[in-house]
């Protein structure tokens, strides 16, 4: 029988109980900082003729509050709304609808009414075909290139007021390589539309 010391156990228990207060507030009570006036409106995706919009419970359902996917003129898209920012950290988040997002990507900044909208794009050519995936992330009411840095900056606020949701929008289109520029332009345009839709849905009435 291995003997264990109980010398510091009381101190350790007190430390654990103190740490348990914020952990319980975040994980059990689930304090949240909703920054969108009408989150339900985000699901009503009618941007540039999106069709077959359906809610979907995916593998990451524990982290996701809204998961919508559908088609827009042959391109597949997903819109994920999550209170857990971790899956959206880094250059390539988990939720991309395309298969070819392992290679290098490009960051395209689109100006919309004075706001920089960073859109990350992957372009993969296979023989004469091309598959293009473009993603947009929105955190704390503005488009961001990566969620990690803004979540670090707002860590103290989040600790006391709860997390803000991350909106992730990704779209993938494919076609003949000669149409790559047009496909990319359409996907980017759709994502800009998604940002405008987000802005309209979330602005205070």
């Amino acid at each position, binding site marked *: 029988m*291995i*003997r*264990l*010391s*109980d*010398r*510091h*156990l*009381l*101190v*350790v*228990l007190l*430390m*654990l*109980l*103190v*740490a*348990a207060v*914020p*952990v319980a*507030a*975040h*994980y059990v009570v689930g304090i949240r900082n909703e920054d969108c006036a009408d989150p339900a409106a985000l699901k009503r995706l009618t941007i540039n003729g999106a069709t077959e919009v359906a809610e979907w419970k995916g*593998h*990451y359902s*524990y982290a996701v509050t809204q998961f919508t996917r559908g088609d827009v003129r042959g391109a597949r898209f997903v819109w994920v709304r999550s209170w*857990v*920012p*971790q899956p959206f*950290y*880094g250059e*390539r988040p988990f939720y991309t609808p395309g*298969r*070819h997002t*392992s*290679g290098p990507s490009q960051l395209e900044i689109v100006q919309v009414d004075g706001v920089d909208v960073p859109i990350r794009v992957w372009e*993969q*050519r*296979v*023989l004469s075909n091309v598959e293009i995936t473009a993603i947009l992330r929105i955190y704390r009411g503005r488009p961001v290139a990566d969620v*990690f840095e803004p*979540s*670090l900056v*707002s*860590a*103290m*606020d*989040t*600790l006391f007021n709860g*997390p803000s949701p991350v909106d992730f929008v990704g779209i993938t289109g494919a076609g003949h390589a000669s149409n790559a520029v047009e496909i990319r332009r359409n996907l980017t345009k759709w994502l800009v539309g998604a940002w405008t839709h987000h802005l309209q849905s979330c602005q205070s009435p």
Partner: protein
Amino acid sequence: MLLWAVVAAYLFLFSSVVFWLAEQYVHGIWWNGHSLFVPLLMVALADRILRKDEKDKKDRKARAGSPSPAGDAISPTADTSAWGLLLIATGLAMVVVDCAIRSQYLSLFGLLLCLPGFSLLLLGVRKTRLLWLPLVLSLFLIPISTRLAEDIYLPQLISQGIVWIADLVGMSVIRVETTVSIASGGFNVSEDCSGFGGIYASLCVALVLGTYTHSRGRIALLAIAPWLLAVAINIPRGFVLLLGVKYFGMGFLTTFWHTASGIVAFWIALGALLLLADWRTLREELG
């Protein structure tokens, strides 16, 4: 009673990261599936090491026929170190901060930092030193991103290797970056498919086997083997998948055989590592 209260509070604090880890581990064999076995390996090793220590202590006492030597007389209570409190406090601070960041990694590092902390407080300094291997193995609980494969150009190497084999057998193949194509189709050698998960798992096994090896040459071989095996096994594996695409079409990649080939690749690597092991020392040290 107090000990159980500490265990319960500890489990509560880290339950979120444990659920997250479970999700990471069962997500797919290409990622961190092997990490499911790491806690078992840690517990089994710690159990063996502590039992052997107790047995050695008894043997020494029996041989001396007198009160035990000074080192053995140290009780866990006398041997505990307050550094354990510092490690636990730091680990808990990480969990609290991670409530805000939700990286889960920060919580995980906190969880791992608490392990040597608890060992120092509950078992004492001497036994914590004995338990260095299970504690180091806990690092393999960290889910790694297969994106690291890209940093060491593994998908590029594997895809180029597939082309080399195809050239040898006179098969016409086109490689664009990491995508290998033939007339009937092709596939991208992704980071997941390049065998990086297998390297991570093999390094964990190699660390245990290398610890219980006396020969320096064998240790060097065990250190380098996971990297070489990943390349040596996954290139022919990729070529077999390409043959599957050639004869059965693109649908072959969505069959069970695609996954099975990954599992077989790891089992071959594991078998090769076990062949390199110093079994005599392993038996002596771990019984």
